[in-house]
């Protein structure tokens, strides 16, 4: 019985300490919502965007300006001098520069994402204006289905990132602070069970989970129209497991550090690769295929993949075995290594 009371007291005091830090409340609850809002504005689905294409005044290519303007998706810009046009091409203000008549020369930098679009559209507009008839009729239909938009990708990613950040920061800083204040040393001369203490650090994260996950999810679903197709229970279980996992990782990162600077460095070292690789803001499909199995072994990748699969695709537990296994394995590993190497004084 005293064991349960001990764990309950340790968890409860940890929760109280946290809720009495106003800054912490901001970072855990409000920051992710603000981030999602800003990103949803920046990446909201727009109609077909016009690509600016330059022509130098007096150049023979000038006779296509009208055709380009009328074609849709292109915005002809006429420059007084060749130097001015080239300067804009270099800075990316125009996607392409056209010169000459026949052959028409399209100058562009193919590494810019909109340049290839410009080349194709210019070619298409010029050929049609010159009388090309297309042998096959093509109809287009713009898809804006919920679940396939960038914001739909983003919300589970932000949720995962937030679970990682608050878990690692919250646990790591608190432990190093207690070590610096010699509080851990003080606990060492009591009969307190060390596993209870470390478990309380992880359990206390549960208390914030409801607010943290709920706020971001509701914001995504209600305000941004992100679909929620899977089981809510399964989703909650995965969030809880994720929170546990990152609290455990925080525990491990803070298990030896003696200064806040030291632990900050370690935490950034651990989190940076996952911010970049684990599919928070963009899919890890962008990285070479050989790295994918390794990337999927990162806890945040597994968490993000799992959350997306449940929210967006409605997958069930039977289809998410690997994701749950990876997160659970990290949780156990971190906790037991931390318990072994933890420095109390």
């Amino acid at each position, binding site marked *: 019985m*005293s064991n349960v009371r*001990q764990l309950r007291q340790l968890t409860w005091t940890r929760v109280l300490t946290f809720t*009495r830090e106003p800054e912490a409340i901001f970072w855990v609850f409000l920051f992710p919502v603000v981030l999602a809002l800003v990103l949803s504005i920046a990446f909201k689905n727009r109609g077909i965007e016009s690509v600016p294409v330059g022509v130098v005044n007096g150049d023979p290519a000038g006779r296509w300006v009208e055709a380009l303007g009328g074609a849709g998706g292109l915005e002809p810009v006429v420059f007084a001098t060749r130097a001015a046009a080239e300067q804009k091409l270099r800075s990316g203000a125009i996607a392409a520069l056209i010169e000459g008549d026949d052959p028409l020369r399209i100058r562009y930098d193919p590494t810019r994402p909109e340049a290839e679009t410009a080349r194709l559209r210019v070619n298409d507009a010029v050929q049609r204006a010159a009388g090309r008839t297309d042998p096959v009729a093509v109809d287009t239909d713009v898809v804006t289905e919920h679940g396939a938009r960038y914001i739909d990708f983003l919300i589970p990613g932000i949720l995962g990132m937030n679970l990682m950040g608050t878990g690692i920061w919250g646990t790591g800083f608190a432990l190093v602070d207690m070590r610096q204040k*010699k509080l851990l040393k*003080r*606990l060492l001369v009591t*009969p307190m069970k060390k596993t209870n203490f470390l478990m309380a650090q992880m359990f206390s994260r549960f208390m914030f989970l409801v607010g943290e996950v709920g706020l971001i999810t509701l914001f995504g679903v209600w305000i941004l129209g992100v679909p929620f197709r899977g089981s809510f229970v399964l989703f909650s279980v995965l969030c809880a497991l994720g929170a546990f996992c990152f609290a455990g990782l925080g525990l491990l990162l803070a298990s030896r550090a003696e200064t806040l600077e030291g632990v900050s460095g370690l935490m950034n070292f651990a989190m940076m690769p996952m911010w970049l690789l684990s599919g928070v803001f963009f899919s890890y499909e962008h990285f070479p295929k050989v790295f994918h199995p390794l990337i999927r072994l990162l806890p945040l990748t597994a968490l993000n993949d799992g959350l997306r699969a449940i929210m967006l695709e409605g997958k069930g537990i039977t289809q998410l075995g690997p994701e749950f296994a990876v997160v659970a394995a990290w949780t156990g590993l971190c906790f037991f290594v931390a318990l072994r190497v933890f420095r109390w004084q």
Partner: protein
Amino acid sequence: MSTPNSIPLSARSLVKRYGNLVAVDGIDLAVPRSTCLALLGPNGAGKTTTIEMLEGLLRPDGGEIQVLGRSWEREGAAIRERIGVQLQETRLPDKLTVLEILRLFRSFYGEGQNPESVMKRVGLSEKARTRTMHLSGGQRQRLALGCALVSRPEILFLDEPTTGLDPQARRRVWEIVEEFKKDGGTVLLTTHYMDEAERLADDLVIIDHGKVISRGSPSAVIAALGAESIVSFTVGEGSQDIDYAGLPGVLAVRDGQGRVELSVTETHHTLPALLDLLKSRDRSLSDLHTHRPTLEDVFVSLTGRHLRDE
């Protein structure tokens, strides 16, 4: 050797080394039940190292420790249930209230007293809902004592419990310790305040450079100095040194920065002779005091340094 019933805490030839430095060099001690033993010494003497070995925080490099008839290696958990500790530098969580902290510490122990009565005992009942960040230094120290007492321990370890506190706050801490002792508790205390040691301790162990340089009850330690009083004074500038040791009844002379201290056995013989001597040498005398020897004088006579010197 010691039986746990009469001697709850004892140590034999304790040694602790840090590289080449021998921090504790063969210390023996025994604390009988319901008494207080003070480890007295200047900063860096090895007091904290010694008490932390006794608390089970540091593993000795040599020697034996018995706490309540048990040894740390085999029965650490059982010992921890029955001791209370106040460490020198612990900062309790700023954002938690007095009652929350006491409840937390209470939860660590199988048996103990309820947090409310501990709070009353250390005089913090009115501060129950105050966060520690808003407590004064003295109140914090009493809360630290409360955390140590909440298990109803048999032995209380206090590492410099009143350092940095004002006189009134120090007295309140002493009263709590005295009450604990009156109820049958055993206390091990480190301090570099002689008044604290004289007030609380039944026995003293004076240590310097990790070694015991004197031990006994405060009155016995002072009596061992053999001096009836300490005569101290300042002498004006002069061309030659004066030999005070030749004066009648002088046991020892310390001459530091113009201030002279004599340990004397017969003040009524020494003083007139001293005045005659200074008159004959045409040296001025100022700020003449005599007092009964204190532990400070014992320490100075043993080491040539003051307790609070760095």
